[in-house]
């Protein structure tokens, strides 16, 4: 977001750079944790007749991951659009 501050902005300190990298990691970890709990609930039923994932469960997990990324992106786009139309348009 450096465009918000223009070129006169001082260099980020070490602490700021590390915090930014950490936050990047946390965003990805958060995404993975949510996806993981949601997809395992959607695709792996609570009966455990066999220790292996069967074909149906495996394919369901693969598709669930793809869909979760899709949803995450679509929701992000929608939230940004809504925020932009609120700031620019002045309502109605």
């Amino acid at each position, binding site marked *: 977001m450096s465009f918000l501050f223009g070129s006169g902005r001082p260099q980020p300190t070490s602490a700021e750079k590390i*915090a930014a990298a950490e*936050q990047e990691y*946390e*965003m990805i970890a*958060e*995404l993975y944790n*949510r996806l993981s709990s*949601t997809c395992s609930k*959607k*695709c792996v039923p609570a009966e455990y007749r066999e220790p292996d994932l069967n074909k149906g469960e495996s*394919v*369901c997990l*693969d*598709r*669930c991951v*793809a*869909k*979760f990324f*899709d*949803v*995450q992106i*679509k*929701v*992000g786009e*929608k*939230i940004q659009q*809504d925020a932009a139309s609120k700031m620019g348009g002045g309502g109605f």
Partner: protein
Amino acid sequence: MEALNPSEQRELQARMERKTMKDFLTTYSNIVQRCFEDCISDFSSKSLTSREEGCLMRCVDKQLKTGERLAQRFQEENANQMAKAGQGGFPGR
């Protein structure tokens, strides 16, 4: 609580900003998770069906509006409690 001096306020401010950023990300993740759970149930293909996509957009709208309404009422109620606490005392504080 003791008053904070300017440098303490700046430090508090900086910490609050990091928390606000984190709170925003949590809100975003909550909406993604809730709307995924409520709208997505067809795993016969890896692309979203148009039905799912419609549900998703309405869900996001509704969750955002729910959040706005809750935040507004929350602030009002919290202000009420603070005012009462000035006279009486708020349990848990």
